[in-house]
């Protein structure tokens, strides 16, 4: 049962929305279930297929937002605050407007409506009206004939600021509530507080045989997609707005454009072109979208805004820095007792998804291990820095890092192998977590087995020479959640499927492919259900005029939710066609199969057969034009307490990593030789794209562990507080091909009962264990505990010299050797 300590300053969530209604929509219940192949064996699912847009990408023909040019298009640029915290006293654009080639200038008063991705925390404006809250906050926009002219015009806009004291870290935010970063905060600089307790934590800790306490710092990082944000907006003479934007959330963008611009939603169309990476950095509306639209409305011409790489750093919405304190207890036999967490979160200047982040910082830790008692107390604060938001593994990567390091320390304390410890505490399948989350399929044990075997764990752990080591970590993640951002009872994903008498299928879905292969998932499902070849399926995605609503690519929901919607739509049509053919052949519909381009009966496949194209035509002649709708809504999930649905998912993925490191004792440089990644994705609809997500996630985690930092300059004499230390891809370092570990992907399939063909997520889960696995490997190698990110050479060297690392290393080996560990 939960206990929530009342906190003032927490924005009140309206009553009645804590749990979904009883009469909630429910997707069809297929008697045969969702997991099995329609025809006994899979023809498309599980095969190493190409992606539907792959050829376009490798030939340079894929159209990204900046590839779009419209007739008479203008270019716009944003003027940004040079101060971390300042009142805007006046903006004088007269000189700018007088320049030849400049068509319009807008400021905050032209777009005063507040917005924010979470309806309870709408604390952003497209252009700041009263105050700038971080260096880079947008305060004006200019539309001109060219980028160059727009840039020159920006320089001519005169802004008068009143500089205010800047808050650039958690402690200052808490100790100086009078330096109020964000006026929408009810109390000081508190963005959100969550306190939840399940079971008797103190009692459990007191009854433990060992308790480990630790302080952890998880450094902030940013997504750094190779494609910067870009938006093209066209407002036509009928009052209709079309916006092409590099976004993951066409639907939310659609709603917020209408709201901020004062347009009816029916007069707005959002199209997502091909997106060059997002990772959560494009999951909410940004200034460029509102400004390009508004400037188009004013000038009557299309307007494009392309962020420079530097501006992408100011848009940010990346990983929240978290300071975490954990107490974890264990019994001598290896079973966990209680877990207590106190977490401080640096949110940057606005809320973004912060409400969710704060919940996720605690709610997603309660599997794959059983926790008899669990408590977390998380506080997110505002600071005068670019706003943090969801980055791959939103809000759960940080606590997972701390917790998996805690487990390693506990394992050491009781002289138990860390993999064995994790097995010992396995929560199981078809069960509930201590905070009320429903677990169904769970392949975590297989994941541990796989990495243990593939890495040769038993021959390496505590056995390699000084400087080399291996480490393990586990995790779980959501496959989408119950929580649909704005309160409503409508489906979270939907598909319209059309079958054409030419033998083609067209899938229309709001799904957002950001490189993970989401569009292709729909195609694979249609191929499987209807016996089509990949090239005979067209996917039309993320165009709010053409496609039914999908909420977007975040929380790893696309495959599970859109996949299920697509499965339903395709299966309905398959059953329709099967009935028509069964009638014609005089057999049962269950005896009709569609596979490999052929429709036939299982009882007489030679004579009772025709091409799938002919089958479509037969069905169209009998039933009328063929089309179907599929949609997905999550079941009622979550704990019965405030916030109990946040983190509640219809299915959880599970992951285990083993990392092997080789450390340079003189320089502190840690080379991650290899990461073995075992991930339970339910079923790999396409092993190629699942491996791609596993490798890409592990890459991103390793990069956070070793290289990436969000440093903000200390105050220089006149300016400088809150200035990002290096807003470029030269100074903000992501690993090159020479810096990247070797990856081995090990797919585990637990065949989820509710996922499309048993599939669960693979896009974010596989990132989590990489960071703690590397930290634990460093401990095995050097006898030091990297509790703070990043594990840079200077940091590692400092730790090596801080105590007697070698002695610690030897000590850690003794109990296991004595115990005759295998």
């Amino acid at each position, binding site marked *: 049962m939960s206990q929530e300590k009342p906190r003032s300053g927490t924005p009140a969530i309206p009553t009645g929305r804590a749990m979904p209604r009883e009469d909630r929509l429910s997707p069809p219940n297929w008697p045969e279930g969702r997991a099995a192949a329609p025809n006994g064996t899979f023809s498309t699912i599980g095969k190493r297929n190409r992606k539907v847009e792959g050829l376009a990408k490798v030939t340079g023909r894929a159209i990204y937002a900046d590839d779009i040019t419209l007739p008479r298009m203008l270019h716009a640029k944003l003027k940004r605050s040079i101060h971390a915290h300042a009142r805007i006293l006046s903006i004088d654009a007269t000189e700018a407007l007088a320049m030849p080639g400049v068509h319009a200038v807008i400021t905050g008063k032209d777009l005063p409506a507040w917005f924010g991705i979470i309806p309870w925390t709408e604390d952003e404006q497209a252009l700041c009206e009263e105050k700038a809250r971080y260096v880079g906050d947008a305060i004006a926009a200019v539309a001109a004939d060219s980028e160059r002219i727009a840039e020159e015009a920006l320089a001519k806009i005169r802004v008068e600021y009143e500089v205010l004291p800047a808050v650039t870290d958690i402690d200052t935010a808490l100790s100086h509530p009078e330096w109020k970063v964000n006026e929408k905060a009810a109390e000081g600089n508190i963005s959100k507080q969550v306190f939840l307790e399940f079971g008797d934590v103190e009692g459990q800790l007191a009854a433990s045989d060992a308790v480990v306490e630790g302080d952890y710092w998880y450094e902030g990082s940013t997504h750094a997609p190779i494609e910067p944000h870009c938006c093209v907006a066209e407002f036509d003479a009928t009052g209709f707005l079309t916006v092409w934007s590099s976004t993951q959330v066409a639907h939310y963008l659609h709603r917020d454009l209408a709201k901020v611009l004062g347009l009816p939603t029916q007069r707005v169309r959002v199209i997502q072109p091909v997106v060059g990476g997002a990772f959560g950095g494009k999951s909410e509306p940004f200034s460029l979208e509102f400004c390009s639209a508004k400037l188009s409305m004013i000038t009557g011409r299309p307007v494009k805004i392309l962020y420079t790489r530097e501006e992408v750093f100011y848009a940010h919405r990346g990983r929240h820095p978290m300071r975490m304190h954990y107490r974890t207890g264990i019994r001598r036999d290896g079973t966990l007792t209680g877990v207590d967490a106190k977490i401080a979160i640096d949110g940057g200047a606005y809320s973004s998804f912060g409400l969710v982040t704060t919940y996720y910082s605690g709610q997603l830790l309660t599997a794959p291990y059983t926790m008899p008692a669990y408590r977390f107390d998380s506080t997110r604060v505002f600071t005068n820095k670019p706003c943090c938001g969801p980055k791959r593994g939103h809000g759960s990567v940080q606590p997972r890092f701390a917790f998996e390091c805690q487990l390693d320390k506990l394992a050491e304390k009781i002289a138990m192998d860390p993999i064995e410890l994790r097995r010992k505490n396995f929560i199981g399948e078809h069960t509930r977590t201590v905070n009320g989350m429903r677990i169904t399929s769970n392949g975590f044990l297989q994941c541990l087995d796989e990495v243990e075997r593939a890495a040769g764990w038993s021959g390496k752990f505590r056995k390699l020479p000084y400087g080399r080591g291996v480490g393990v970590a586990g995790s779980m993640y959501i496959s989408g959640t119950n929580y649909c951002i704005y309160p409503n009872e409508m489906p979270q994903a939907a598909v319209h499927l059309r079958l054409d008498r030419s033998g083609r299928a067209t899938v229309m879905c709001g799904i957002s492919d950001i490189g993970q292969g989401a569009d292709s998932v729909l195609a694979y499902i249609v191929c499987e259900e209807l016996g089509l070849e990949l090239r005979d399926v067209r996917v039309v995605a993320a165009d709010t005029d053409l496609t039914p609503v999908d909420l977007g690519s975040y929380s790893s929901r696309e495959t599970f939710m859109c996949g299920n919607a697509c499965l339903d739509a395709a299966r309905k049509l398959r059953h329709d066609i099967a009935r028509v053919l069964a009638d014609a052949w005089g057999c049962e519909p269950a005896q009709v199969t569609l596979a490999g381009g052929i429709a036939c009966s299982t009882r007489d496949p030679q004579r009772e057969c025709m091409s799938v194209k002919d089958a479509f035509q037969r069905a169209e002649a009998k039933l009328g034009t063929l089309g179907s709708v599929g949609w997905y809504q999550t079941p009622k999930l979550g704990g019965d307490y405030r916030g109990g649905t946040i983190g509640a998912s219809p299915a959880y993925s599970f992951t285990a990593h083993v990392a092997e490191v080789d450390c340079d004792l003189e*320089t502190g440089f840690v080379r991650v030789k290899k990461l073995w990644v075992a991930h339970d994705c339910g079923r790999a609809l396409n092993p190629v794209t699942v491996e791609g997500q596993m490798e890409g996630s592990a890459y991103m985690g390793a990069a956070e562990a070793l290289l990436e930092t969000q440093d903000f300059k200390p105050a220089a*004499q006149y300016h400088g507080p809150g200035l990002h*230390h290096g807003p470029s891809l030269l100074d903000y370092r992501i690993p090159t091909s020479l*810096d990247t570990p070797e990856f081995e992907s090990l797919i585990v399939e637990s065949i989820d009962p509710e996922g499309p063909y048993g599939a669960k997520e693979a896009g974010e889960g596989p990132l989590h264990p990489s960071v703690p696995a590397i930290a634990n490997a460093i401990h095995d190698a050097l006898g030091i505990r990297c509790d703070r990110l990043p594990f840079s050479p200077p940091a590692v060297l400092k730790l090596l010299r801080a105590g007697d690392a070698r002695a610690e290393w030897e000590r850690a080996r003794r109990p296991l050797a004595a115990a005759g560990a295998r």
Partner: protein
Amino acid sequence: MLTIPVYQWVRPASLDELLAHLRDHAAESLIVAGGTDAVPNLKHRLHEPEFVVHIGGIAGLDSIRDERDGLHLGPLVTLSELSAHPVVRRDFAALGKAASLVASPQIRNMGTLGGNLCLDTRCTYYNQTFFWRESLGFCLKKSGTVCHVVPQGKRCVAAHSSDVAPMLIALGAQLDITGATGTRTLDVDDFFVGDGVHNNVLKPGEVVTRIFVPATSRGLRAGYQKLRPRAAIDFPMLSVAFATRLESGVCRGARLVVSAIAARPRVVGGLETLAEGMPLDDALGERLAGAAYKQCKPLINVPYDQEYRQEMVPVFVRRAVREAMGEAA
């Protein structure tokens, strides 16, 4: 997009044409060869010249001539060409290595030996966009009055970031500077000065026209070690170049150069007593490491830990000596 300031384009077809233009317009001209340093700096508005003088393609400046007296290199030789050249690989391998470690393959295809030699100094407070520098309040090197690395200081301490320069100094190389009044030859060591704003002795109107590595430096035992966060793209946070002749088992004329820690490469002093006539071994590496540590004090002018870079000086000196010994570093 980062737009480039407006300027007039000048493309001299010959050295004479180049010098003629510079005679009248040196102060308002930016010379661009490969552009890998100049163009990003233009995009950052660190230079807003009236003329950009593109010298790529000027005949005679891109040759590699292996002669009796030594290796004659044109300033327009690209870093890729330099590191792949058979004579460089055979006789001056450490120089080829230094060139091969610059940035990325694409940049090495574009960037030139002369360009890397004349690389603008770098600092975390300088190599940023105009917007960023305005937010900071500018700096001593460009548009401001304060050095943010040494706030009380009056001199710019932006770091020398060339990879070829310290190696050329260790190899005893020379270069020719040509101007309106003719050509003068000087040691590469004398080319650099400790001024972060302008760290070489080129006067307006002068260009480097030849780099010369003497025959006596052929087959020197040499090593080049570069410290940087990633294994590609990054500028050096610290670099060490070491070279020595080995005669009858002992060092003659050894040189040790530590770079990226100050505005010019630092030639470590005292090798006459520490190295001359002594074996090329780990003990030498130890002695040189100690001397370098005492003499080289990095400043926080590049984004990496200052204390750490100082600690790495002896580590990388030892590694450079081991490399020269032919051992794995």
